[in-house]
């Protein structure tokens, strides 16, 4: 679970990993630029490169397998969540507002009576059941520092089950992250987390 007090967010980690990858590529490019004039027998050089082929692919395969093993254990889907939800919130996205509130899944999302601002407790696992009444939207929770914490799509005809625990109190913003028509950017909501 994401912790709002973490210094290095998932986003920063992803950027750092990508930067390392990019630097490796830049290093290879510079190496090729600077070594192209070296050596006497150009066909020998090609053989030297091919001699490293096994190690190169083994190394890459190892990186990929390690990456998969580490990351596939942290999926955001309900069946991978170990904690049972403490509270359920229904969320309906409609052009161009959010309706949120407790209750049963409505037969007709359009008629759901919710509000664009809700209050939730900290430290509790919240189950957000998310859908849309018209086009596809994306329910995204941001903290006050503008860090994206969690998201799921709001798609007409489907209910997506997003679990999230607000570690601390504060005011959180809901944005729509799926383009849903010209006024897309004004589709916001608010989650106040307090005891």
């Amino acid at each position, binding site marked *: 679970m994401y912790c709002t007090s973490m210094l290095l967010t998932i986003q920063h980690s992803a950027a750092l990993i990508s930067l390392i990858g990019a630097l490796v590529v830049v290093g290879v490019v510079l190496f090729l630029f600077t070594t192209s004039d070296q050596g006497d027998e150009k066909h020998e050089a090609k053989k030297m490169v*091919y001699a490293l082929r096994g190690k190169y692919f083994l190394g890459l395969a190892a990186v990929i397998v390690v990456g998969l093993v580490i990351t596939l254990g942290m999926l955001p*889907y309900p069946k991978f969540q170990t904690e049972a939800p403490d509270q359920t919130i229904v969320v309906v996205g409609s052009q161009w507002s959010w309706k949120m509130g407790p209750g049963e899944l409505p037969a007709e999302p359009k008629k759901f009576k919710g509000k664009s601002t809700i209050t939730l407790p900290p430290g509790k696992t919240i189950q957000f059941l998310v859908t849309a009444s018209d*086009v596809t939207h994306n329910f995204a929770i941001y903290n006050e520092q503008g860090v994206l914490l969690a998201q799921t799509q709001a798609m007409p005809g489907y209910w997506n089950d997003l679990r999230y625990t607000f570690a601390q109190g504060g005011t959180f913003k809901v944005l729509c992250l799926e383009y849903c028509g010209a006024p897309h950017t004004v589709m916001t909501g608010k989650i106040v987390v307090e005891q």
Partner: protein
Amino acid sequence: MTAFNPEDRGRHKKLILTWSITFLVLFPLLIVLGLLMRMNQGEVIKVDNATFYSYMTLHGLGMAGVLFSMAWAAVFYLVGTRYVKLNIGLGYAVFLLVVIGSVGLAVATLIGKFAAGWYMLYPLPFIGATWKAWTTGLAIISLIIMGVAWLIGCLHVVYALSREYGGFTNLIGWQYLGKKPPEKELPPLALIATISLVPGILAFIAGAAMLVMYLLQHLEPSLSFDALVQKNLMFFFGHTLVNITMYCGVGWLYTLLPEFTGREWKLNKLTVYAWNATFFFIVFAYFHHLYMDFVQPTGLQIAGQLASYFSAIPATAVTMFGVIAQLYRSKVKWGVIPTAFLLGVAGWAIGGFAAVVDSTISINKVLHNTLWVPAHFHTYMLMGVVLLILAFLYYLGSTEKNRDLSPKAGFGFWLFVAGAYGFLLMFYLGGMESIPRRFSEYASSGIAHTHDTGALLAKVAALFVALVLIGLLMMYGALFNGLLKKDQAPAK
């Protein structure tokens, strides 16, 4: 062995020049739309939302269409002048249909303000539209016309190659997997074109089915379709189209780079296995666009991550390795063409790596639909595909005796590359800072950091886009001079 006469080469040259000049005219115009969007996000100019999103729609559809069309045309030219006779009339028919479709999209977006985005996520084109209904119909029909053109074009190339090389299994290199050496050597371009265009054919059929459903709903609004199924069809179509655009470029990299290094680049068992694996992974990788649709079966989500990770090895890593083997101590003369090839592969690798990071489900949950997404696909397209296309265009305009370019073209090239990486860096920083993609402005978010950082990055990015345009236009003198020179023999 197919014999090629000079007339055929000349006719092919005229066709590829038609495609190339169209590309060189449209590409900067589409960049200007991107520049206007970044300037609006940076609060340098103010355009209304309807206009902003119509620009975004045309920029996305236009770039994907123009780049794929140019990539296909380059493959058509190289295959048709080196390996097998192709129907040039069909090549012109594809061009004509693509132009008709492009004009339709331009009218729908620039005049009618059609603004459903490049992937027109169902059912957005039909609900709450700020544009007129006729523009939706025109956009759908235009895309169908372009899709049919690409379908015909891909089928023709694959069919002709298949006849030349003794059937489809030979075309995907299976004769290299036995103990005996193949009777007839398969050029890498033939293999890679097939591996690219066949999934393209499947994607165009899926896209056509989806667009016909769109058209039916447009004609009969009481109809409706399943949003999740439509989304799967759209991304199978869209993701595959973008993916194979790059692979077409890799096809001519394998063909042309050896002419500069003096080293052969032939198929072997490893490359055949690698590209066959790519063939498989291309089809499943699009699932990573649907990670945030939690109702999509989890098995498909995991398949999306596996396919995205493993597709990196066969295509990118094998090609990267091949490029290193081609260039290391090769005594290559670093003119713009081999430089563009090397940097094109590097851009593909950098963008591809950032894409693999984003294709990790547990990371995608906080990067999805942020600026990280345009960051990696713009890297892949602008510093990957476009550089490979520029390498091809320079090659096309050069002669065997003179593959060098004027210093001015070289300066323009480096300005283009520097501007592009500056522009891309702003996207990556935006993704790292959770700035949403597809926001016409950031003030409405109500989050100070999102607004301040988003607007600042967009403003700086706009400056870099200006450098990209200046660099590109500086290359045009040398490019057009080479392409339009009448007295030279066509490039081989």
